């Protein structure tokens, strides 16, 4: 801002013809950048995209930052006896299921019995499966807000089983949580295996003397999803209500008042076993994203990865966007980078930034998935619930490479699985302080490679850097144009010309804010409505609102001619607003801001009134108009949603698009994702403004 102010002054002086002095170098640089903003904006944007593509190359190998963790330094104490304890539990549960079909809480009792045999303190916790309702006021409030007392129905509730092993010589200040989501009614054979793994481990932990933190094993009743039981347990753990709850009245299992705690939770591991892997070996997938792109400390992932790869021989992977693996353009990019890397290597053997094209593709597919899930802002598993309480947690999903009835391999699987958990727990147990050494802001490109915030923010910074430059130069242009049209003297520059445009921009942002809040009121509409109907309702009310806004004089961007505002100033203010919005969002959720910038920056930069372009009939301007039209079309959230769906590989949806979009948005606000706010309050207004500029009657 300072730069263009000085630019003005500079201009004024030259116009006056007074003897000018040489401005300061930094000012000159600013002037230079602003004067050549079209070139630089293209260069910067291209560099931003290039930097994003370069990220897989710049990924560093992970390392254990906290020395106290010492993963794998202790020999595993797990014996065959412990593993057979696990097998026994699995067998008992299977037999039990065969004999009793879908019987109340008997399976829970069985697991509870096993736990108490291992000298653990056992209790049961009931919870209600109700989901979270969107409430605009509770958006960023803490997890405490969802202990609202609602009408409780006895018909449906879940029961968690929890066992606590007290550290023999510990002081009970801290604990480590193990979670196994388990569907007590219709859990499959593979789900049983997760119980087997953890019970083998539990059997060991009840004997060992090295524990310094208590161990909590939570068997979460995943009948109503994986997340809800864990969140309910955590809510009860941290924010219990001492008032009467109706839940206790419907009593089948005595859960009243025996909830036990074990100090501050240091870390949590969620173990899931599902479906057979396509390979022969067992595959371990790590899920780490919590809500709004929050990640657990990288050290936790490192420890698990190190132990799984170097000790237990699991094939570790993190999520990837599968469709990118076969994309040809990515392959070409990868090959180019590889070639450049080779050339650089011949020039200087110390330059080792080239990686093979295949690795590059893998890395970018993982990176894309990492960006996508962070940008989405929805936790990828039950571990997300822990992040709300500042607990580092990850989900380990193991896909065993054997059929569930193979006894020999099952025993081996229990042994290896629980050894992995034992090693991880032992490392966390070693920690005197909470996780703080390693990174919290990072993107993964493979289980053992990461990009830290210092590197990945360059791409975003480059993308966004062009915005203030273009805004400044447009402002100058607009002011010049105005001066010409009104034949006013230099006063024009110093006047508040941008205020009119700002009013319009503000009006549209206000509209965006209202549209963001609308779903809450639509949800309040009585009667059952399909998601599609709701989205139609939302769309019509929003359009009506838009029309109302447009008709209000002074606020509408189309009424600009009356006030003599020209589109350049409007665009300049729009770009400033987008810049501020993107920068704010990058603090809250970087990935959202990055993807948003990829969409919004070209749209904002290219937006120009199409009328003059059509009138001029020159190829260049027609092409520009066409590009901006395409970008604006893609930039519409619904269209972008459809395109992403197609990219992710879920197939393009036809008429049900509105419904799907609604459900998607519903999930966003149910999970309190800041992405929803971003779409409603930054992206949508800026997109609308771009549309206004596009159809500006200039």
């Amino acid at each position: 801002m300072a730069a263009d102010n000085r630019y003005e002054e500079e201009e004024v002086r030259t116009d006056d013809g007074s003897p000018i002095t040489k401005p300061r170098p930094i000012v000159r640089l600013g002037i230079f950048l602003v004067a050549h903003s079209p070139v630089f904006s293209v260069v910067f944007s291209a560099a931003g995209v290039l930097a994003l593509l370069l990220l897989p190359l710049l990924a560093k190998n992970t390392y254990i930052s906290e020395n106290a963790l010492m993963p794998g330094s202790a020999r595993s104490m797990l014996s065959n006896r412990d593993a057979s304890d696990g097998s026994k539990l699995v067998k008992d549960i299977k037999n039990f299921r065969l004999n009793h079909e879908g019987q109340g809480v008997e399976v829970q009792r069985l697991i509870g019995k096993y736990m108490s045999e291992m000298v653990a303190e056992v209790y049961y916790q009931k919870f209600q499966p109700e989901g979270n309702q969107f409430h605009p006021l509770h958006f960023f409030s803490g997890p405490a807000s969802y202990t609202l007392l609602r009408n409780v129905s006895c018909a449906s509730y879940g029961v968690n089983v929890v066992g606590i092993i007290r550290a023999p010589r510990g002081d009970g200040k801290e604990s480590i949580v193990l979670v196994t989501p388990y569907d007590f009614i219709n859990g499959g054979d593979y789900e049983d295996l997760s119980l087997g793994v953890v019970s083998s481990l539990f059997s060991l932990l009840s004997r060992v003397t090295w524990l310094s933190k208590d161990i909590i094993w939570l068997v979460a009743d995943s009948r109503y999803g994986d997340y809800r039981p864990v969140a309910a347990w955590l809510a009860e753990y941290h924010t219990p209500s001492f008032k009467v709850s109706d839940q206790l009245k419907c009593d089948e299992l005595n859960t009243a008042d025996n909830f036990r705690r074990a100090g501050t939770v240091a870390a949590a591991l969620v173990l899931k076993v599902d479906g057979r892997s396509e390979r022969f070996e067992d595959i371990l997938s790590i899920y780490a994203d919590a809500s709004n792109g929050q990640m657990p400390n990288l050290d936790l992932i490192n420890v698990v990865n190190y132990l799984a790869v170097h000790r237990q021989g699991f094939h570790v992977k993190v999520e990837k966007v599968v469709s990118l693996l076969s994309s040809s353009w990515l392959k070409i990019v990868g090959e180019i980078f590889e070639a450049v890397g080779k050339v650089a290597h011949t020039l200087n053997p110390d330059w080792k930034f080239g990686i093979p094209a295949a690795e590059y593709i893998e890395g970018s597919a993982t990176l894309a998935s990492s960006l996508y899930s962070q940008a989405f802002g929805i936790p990828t598993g039950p571990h997300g619930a822990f992040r709300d309480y500042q607990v580092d947690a990850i989900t380990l999903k193991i896909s065993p490479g054997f059929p569930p009835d193979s006894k020999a391999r099952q025993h081996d699987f229990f042994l290896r699985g629980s050894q992995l958990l034992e090693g991880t727990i032992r490392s966390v147990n070693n920690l005197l302080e909470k996780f703080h050494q390693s990174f919290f802001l990072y993107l993964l490109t493979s289980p053992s490679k990461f990009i830290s915030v210092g590197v990945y923010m360059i791409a975003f910074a480059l993308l966004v850097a062009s915005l203030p430059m273009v805004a400044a130069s447009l402002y100058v242009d607009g002011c010049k144009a105005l001066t010409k049209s009104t034949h006013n003297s230099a006063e024009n520059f110093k006047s508040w010309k941008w205020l009119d445009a700002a009013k319009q921009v503000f009006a549209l942002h206000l509209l965006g804010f209202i549209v963001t809040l609308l779903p809450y009121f639509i949800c309040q509409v009585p009667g059952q409505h399909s998601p599609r109907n709701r989205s139609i309702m939302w769309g019509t009310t929003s359009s009506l609102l838009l029309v109302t806004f447009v008709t209000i004089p002074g606020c509408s961007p189309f009424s600009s001619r009356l006030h003599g505002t020209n589109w350049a100033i409007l665009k300049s203010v729009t770009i400033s607003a987008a810049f501020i919005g993107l920068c704010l969002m990058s603090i809250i959720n970087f990935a959202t801001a990055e993807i948003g910038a990829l969409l919004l920056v070209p749209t904002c930069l290219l937006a120009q009134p199409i009328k003059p372009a059509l009138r001029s009939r020159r190829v260049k301007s027609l092409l520009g108009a066409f590009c901006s039209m395409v970008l604006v079309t893609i930039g519409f959230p619904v269209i972008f949603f459809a395109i992403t769906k197609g990219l992710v590989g879920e197939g393009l949806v036809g008429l049900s698009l509105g419904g799907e979009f609604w459900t998607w948005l519903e999930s966003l606000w149910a999970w309190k994702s800041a992405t929803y706010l971003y779409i409603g309050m930054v992206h949508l207004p800026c997109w609308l403004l771009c549309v206004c500029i596009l159809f500006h009657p200039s």
Partner: protein
Amino acid sequence: MARLVRSWILLLILQSFLVSIAFGSKEVEEFSEALLLKPLPDRKVLAHFHFENRAPPSNSHGRHHHLFPKAISQLVQKFRVKEMELSFTQGRWNHEHWGGFDPLSSMNAKPVGVELWAVFDVPLSQVDTSWKNLTHALSGLFCASINFLESSTSYAAPTWGFGTNSDKLRYGSLPREAVCTENLTPWLKLLPCRDKDGISALMNRPSVYRGFYHSQRLHLSTVESGQEGLGSGIVLEQTLTVVLQPDTTSVERNTQPSWSLNSLFGRKVVGRCVLAKSSNVYLQLEGLSGHELKNVDSEIEAHKLWKNADFELSLKPDRVLREISSFLFIFDIEKSSDSEPFDLGLTWKRPSKWLCQLAPLHASRFLMGSGNERGAIAILLKETESQEKLNLTNGRCTIKVNIFQIFPWYVKVYYHTLQIFVDQQKKTDSEVLKKINVSPSTDKVSSGMMEMMLELPCEVKSAAISIEYDKGFLHIDEYPPDANQGFDIPSALISFPDHHASLDFKEELGNSPLLSKFKEKSSVRSYTEVLLVPLTTPDFSMPYNVITITCTIFALYFGSLLNVIRRRIGEEERFLKSQAGKKKGGLKQLLSRFIAKIRGRPIEESSSSSELQSSVLSSKLIFKIILVAGAAAAWQYFSTDK
């Protein structure tokens, strides 16, 4: 009545004996040692070592003692300590399985780390000074960081909530103090036989520290002689309580593990400490069914007591005492020798189960809330299957509960947010709160303290107390070395003033300090867990960053300020013009031309637009940059090739 008379007579005899000692200038310092063993319901064994050292009031020997440790007597004299207790504890006392109602647990279940309290016999204004000096002295004596209790932010002066009503009482605890042998060794040095002989020889360090609970305690009190010119006597009581897990070889999970002293400690008792007046080993068995105990008089019945179908002792007890719910077997170790060491063993034959006496209410404490701003501390009291609860006041059966708690200053407690729920119903303060005494904390100066007395109905199922707090910010140099661990809130003390724990023996006790201690009525008390509050911690490299950034900003600011002040633009212009007018010779002219070229000839072509200038400048600049980069790359290439 007869009993009363008898005890009076006994007292009289004792008194005359003491008086005769005093007047006959024949002061006797007494030392006695005892070990109490007690199997616990959860397959563990409790061993409680008890040493008592009495120094009678005297001034004949000056400052010399026969048995009594000089360090302690000097401590008492110097700081005028009236009563003091210091405990080092590791592990948690399991109130559910190890009992909470007997004198053993109410006296020896201590909070994790170090706890110290002392009552002084000095004017009120000097109490704090004495306390500070005492902490330093003890710190040196016991190789522990007790001196951290010196700071006024770590101790408090309880008025009535602690149990001892005195305004000269100071209380402090260090939950993070690690306890190990270096604390035990100085403690053993206070014993006349150290750990060389007698019962204390059992204290094999590995086995003691392998235990599940380990608490070493030192309690001293002064006994006023009541006579002019005579100093006060001191009673020093040292106890070590350990809970051990006997090695189990038996496959059966139901039967209790059998053990012997040798298997528990890896050592045997080979004789008493010759300086001890009495040295006994006690074995307390709880919850034995009463059917076989009808007639204890006959020899066979007595024999049955220690060798029966349920269990068997390896040695014949010298005496058997009966209590309401337990038996106490007494062994004198005087007979043991090197050739015939005393190795008491207990063998269980049948699975047996019993329950310990539990405190009227089980207390647990936890933190509520999340985030780095605020939270709440909750104390939950739950009913237990305790036998003794009745206490009628005004026709209503009530349980009185005292809660005493210290809050460090960085936990800024809002006392008005105190909420009390009884049986999940919110109660107003006046309904259940009998007394409350609060002293708020002062930032960085003193810790807060809360004492409250609740009166709950006997049929109470659960009671919860919650109080909210804000997390404070510490100054950068106030953080401890491992700040990211979080900060501890010391244990709260829950005591039941109307419930008294004492063992009520039917038989006469004889002269045993341990048993008389147990017979004394003491109120039931229990400590809650230590809490860990994660506070916001800065990134500790931040000061460095802050310094660098501040310095940069300062440099920029002062640089430009000086520039603005110093520069005279008019003068410069005139100077430039005069320079341009002058003729220069040779190299100088070339140089100035070159400079002018680089700068884009600012003076001559002032009217041309800056855009043009900058574009010219940019192309040249880019060319130059490329030139330099090319040179650098070439140099790099050729230099590394060799």
